[in-house]
């Protein structure tokens, strides 16, 4: 941290306790599951047992006649709605229409007076299916004779988040493709001093959040109102606007606290189904999924990546080429953007003169995939950072030194056309190396690794806010971003308090209600501190400008005679705080001023990405060679965050991201067998536990104030995930000599790899 720059701060760059912490741990915080509307009914969902089938007929009469049941929603009875949604590709029916595309897809919903009655009536519905051949893997799905999942043509959604066209709906199961090319890879590989080449797999993962999806919808004379666990309420509003063919002013999304998202709650999920139930039943309807149902709703895209990387005789990386097959499952969701981002992120945080990336996002008959923390970066960094270690080994260079030698330099335009690098990776790497004792001797059976990543983060910069300064000197922030545990409801008022010069406790956050709070595109891509933070800063400044004009008015002087100071103004001998300015202006100790800000793709934000999200991670593992069990002994992270508005929260996000990365690196994988999800529950899907956490954890932040956010801040909270699976593979290699290119590194996989490595070397098995 640069002390001289931060000395002036009163509220930011301090670890004030998170504002919602006490309410959350004591159970008082409001989540959607706590909301109950008058006359509210409950919906339960009947799900397809088949991965791919035509719905021949459906008999819902017995369920409809069941006592306590109001209605049954079915796909052939949606006259009056536009039943397909999707911000990128409008391919997703809110309930199956004519056919099902994955096992677990909603085929009907029972709406009843209570949840149990709705559940009981599900088994009274009889559906006749005609099973179709299913495709479960991308390459199988792209075969010429593969069954087609979607027969319709699709238009590209206006809010898809990228400029290219969508590929979906062109008569194959290709959902999206993306290609990057500069330089001449073939020539570079031909002239390389050393080349590493391999195929890597990053598994399907579930972004477990303590709160499964939940929505309460009401359709009335004034439009549609939905309480939802959505991360991006304004994006959901846009999908619902189309479904109901209403102006956005009549679609209201209200999001109280979200119980964890990690990407899984970005974009539209169950809101269309819940609101169609409310439309059908003509009463408010609550749809609360179980964890197992949430696991049948969204997952992360898995990726099979063939990659090769070349170095010259000086140890400089001269070329990288990759061919990626990703699996979006039955619907596009946000995977077209994941396709583009993972292609970009495949390059890694290195300045490479020759690059070619060919990425294919493919439909299959599996649970739809969408955003997942890290957003495409973790998938390809498993390949990229593994390969960096493989190359270092080939040329006999220390993998840490190799990274230092090649990492993007500050202000370097390492990705042509994108924002020059706004981080300091070599500094980050040095800190992590120091913290995990890179050069120190290791016990036998232990291995270390270090890694890094940089993601083009921040999504599309469109954010607005209003800061209301009240006549008593307190303030309300009108924030479209959602609080999903990341700490925005603490960080944003810190920024307002800093700017307005008022105590933190006097700043209230009014949050995520599309009818009240100004537009914010999304709460994801690590953007909120940077974009909403900057909006809050600018809106606070604009409020101050207005109050300076008001002060000039009440003092009868020119604006130029007023000096704005911390918490108020001075003018000659006169000194007024904001409360006094407003009270004198309105001649009443009440009233307010509204400061506004609109962030768009312009000025500081004209060039994308909004910022590079960069971090370095290092670990030490021990490997029980007899069982293959890997234990993470040490973890070091270094988040390159520009300035941490709240360092404790920023570090909390780093360890959270690293833990997710450890989970995928070591245990997490959704497995399909015979077209069914095999481990769609928390008994069989292995999440990280506290007992898995390393004994030694060192979290550090680099704060060079080099971002475009407030006070030089940048986003964090995802990058520590991205390099972790490769960290684990590299550390296991360092400990055992076995190179594993498929995550997760489960004990059996590690045991087999060690055995095969020994056999290849002609050693005896142990």
């Amino acid at each position, binding site marked *: 941290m640069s002390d001289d720059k931060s000395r002036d701060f009163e509220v930011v760059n301090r670890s004030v306790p998170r504002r919602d912490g006490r309410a959350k741990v004591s159970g008082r915080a409001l989540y959607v599951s706590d909301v109950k509307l008058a006359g509210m009914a409950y919906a339960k969902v009947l799900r397809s047992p088949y991965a791919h089938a035509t719905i021949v007929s459906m008999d819902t009469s017995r369920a409809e006649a069941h006592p306590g049941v109001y209605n049954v929603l079915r796909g052939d009875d949606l006259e009056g709605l536009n039943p397909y949604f999707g911000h990128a590709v409008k391919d997703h029916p809110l309930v199956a229409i004519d056919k099902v595309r994955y096992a677990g897809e909603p085929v009907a919903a029972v709406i009843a007076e209570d949840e149990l009655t709705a*559940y009981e009536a599900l088994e009274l519905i009889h559906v006749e299916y005609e099973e179709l051949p299913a495709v479960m893997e991308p390459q199988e799905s792209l075969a010429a004779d593969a069954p087609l999942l979607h027969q319709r043509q699709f238009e590209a959604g206006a809010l898809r988040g990228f400029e290219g066209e969508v590929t979906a709906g062109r008569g194959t199961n290709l959902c999206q493709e993306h290609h990057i090319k500069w330089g001449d890879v073939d020539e570079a590989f031909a002239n390389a001093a050393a080349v590493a080449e391999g195929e890597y797999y990053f598994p399907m993962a579930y972004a477990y959040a303590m709160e499964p999806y939940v929505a309460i919808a009401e359709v009335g004379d004034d439009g549609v109102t939905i309480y939802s666990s959505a991360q991006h309420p304004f994006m959901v509003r846009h999908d619902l606007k189309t479904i109901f063919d209403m102006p956005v002013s009549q679609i209201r999304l209200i999001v109280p606290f979200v119980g964890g998202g990690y990407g899984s709650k970005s974009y539209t999920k169950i809101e269309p189904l819940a609101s169609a139930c409310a439309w059908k039943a003509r009463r408010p309807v609550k749809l609360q999924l179980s964890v*197992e149902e949430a696991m049948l709703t969204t997952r992360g895209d898995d990726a099979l990546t063939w990659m090769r990387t070349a170095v010259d005789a000086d140890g400089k990386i001269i070329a990288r080429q990759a061919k990626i097959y990703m699996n979006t499952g039955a619907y596009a969701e946000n995977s077209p953007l994941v396709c583009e981002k993972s292609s970009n992120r495949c390059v890694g945080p290195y300045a490479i003169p020759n690059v070619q990336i060919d990425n294919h996002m493919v439909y299959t008959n599996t649970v739809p995939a969408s955003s997942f923390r890290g957003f495409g970066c973790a998938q390809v960094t498993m390949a990229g950072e593994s390969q960096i270690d493989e190359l270092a080994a080939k040329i006999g260079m220390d993998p840490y030194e190799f990274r230092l030698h090649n990492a993007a330099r500050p202000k370097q335009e390492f990705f042509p056309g994108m924002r020059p690098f706004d981080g300091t990776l070599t500094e980050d790497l040095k800190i992590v190396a120091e913290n995990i004792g890179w050069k120190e001797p290791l016990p036998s059976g232990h291995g270390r690794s270090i890694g890094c990543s940089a993601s083009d983060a921040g999504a599309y910069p469109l954010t607005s806010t209003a800061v209301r300064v009240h006549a008593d000197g307190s303030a309300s922030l009108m924030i479209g971003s959602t609080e999903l545990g990341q700490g925005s409801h603490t960080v944003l008022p810190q920024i307002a308090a800093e700017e307005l010069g008022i105590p933190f406790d006097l700043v209230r956050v009014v949050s995520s209600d599309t009818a009240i709070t100004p537009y914010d595109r999304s709460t994801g891509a690590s953007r909120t501190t940077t974009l909403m933070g900057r909006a809050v800063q600018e809106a606070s400044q604009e409020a101050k400008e207005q109050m300076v004009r008001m002060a000039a008015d009440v003092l009868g002087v020119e604006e130029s005679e007023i000096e704005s100071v911390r918490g108020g103004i001075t003018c000659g001998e006169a000194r007024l705080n904001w409360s006094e300015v407003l009270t004198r202006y309105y001649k009443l100790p009440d009233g307010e001023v509204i400061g506004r800000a609109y962030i768009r793709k312009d000025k500081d934000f004209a060039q994308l990405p909004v910022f590079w999200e960069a971090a370095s991670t290092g670990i030490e593992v021990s490997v029980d060679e*007899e*069982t293959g069990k890997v234990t993470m002994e040490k973890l070091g992270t270094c988040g390159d965050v520009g300035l941490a508005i709240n360092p404790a929260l920023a570090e909390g996000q780093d360890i959270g991201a690293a833990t997710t990365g450890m989970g995928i690196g070591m245990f997490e994988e959704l497995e399909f067998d015979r077209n069914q999800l095999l481990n769609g529950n928390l008994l069989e899907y*292995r999440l990280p536990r506290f007992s898995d956490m390393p004994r030694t954890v060192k979290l550090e932040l680099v704060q060079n104030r080099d971002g475009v956010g407030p006070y030089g801040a940048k986003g964090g909270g995802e990058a520590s995930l991205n390099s972790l699976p490769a960290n684990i593979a590299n550390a296991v290699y360092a400990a055992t000599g076995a190179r594993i290119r498929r995550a997760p590194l489960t004990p*059996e996989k590690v045991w087999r790899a060690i055995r095969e490595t020994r056999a290849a070397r002609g050693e005896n098995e142990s």
Partner: protein
Amino acid sequence: MMPLRRFAIHRPADLREAAEMLDHYGENGSLYAGGTELLLAMRHDLLRYAHLIDIKTVAGLDGIERRDEHLHIGAAATHRTIERSAVVREQLPVMAEMAANVANVRVRATGTLGGNLAFAEPHSDPATLLLALGGNARAQGKSGERTLAMDELLAGAYENSLAQDEILTGVDVPVPGPSQRTAYLKFQVHERPLLGLALSLELDDDGGVIREARCAVGCVSPTPCRSATAESLIAGPADSLEQRIEEAGEALADEAALTDDREGSAEYKRHLIGVLLRRAARKCLNGNG
């Protein structure tokens, strides 16, 4: 996991009333002794019962006490109670250590030994250990009480051999003498263990010879199993056990009839049985794993 379907819970005053209820509700009823497995299966709609008979309300079923050469542990004793019981820790420390590592603290605080054994989940830690320790289950039926060895009680995966009117009341575990060494080890990836392995060695007076061995492997077959071949291989001079242990592990693996499943391949399980058996033997003989 979905909502629990509607059911009634009944609280019998004593075993006789519980048995009458069981008889009365027949297939619609089940004993409820903590519910950590039962309610999970009901929430997943794998089991449906309209009536649950809460055996935990019967007085005296959760007692733990020394009875002659046995330690008696009541069926309604929770894993947590066993883990913390002074008498278990003193007289059967391997049982306390095993109990301390069952599932997680919430399961241990609620789940009971009797419920665990009667549910006959193939991944049960207590079943494997008790099989090696020679524990006997006590069951009370209309026509009186009987004693069943562990391999008699456990009829298959999720299947016990109790009659409709019979209630498991507890287990009697022989208290190990000074020459007996015991160990329970498990290997776990997911929520339930991949492998549980229990070993009990009876040594001669100077500790140089293993007079008798009992070993059991759990989680990898429908019920935990022993191998007479393995046990006779383990018996013999203690200092040369390492040379016999691999073959013993193979014999034990043969008995388990291993299959490939999500927990691992049969080959890996076979390998792990060998590893855990060797570690258990070292723990018994040297006090470390």
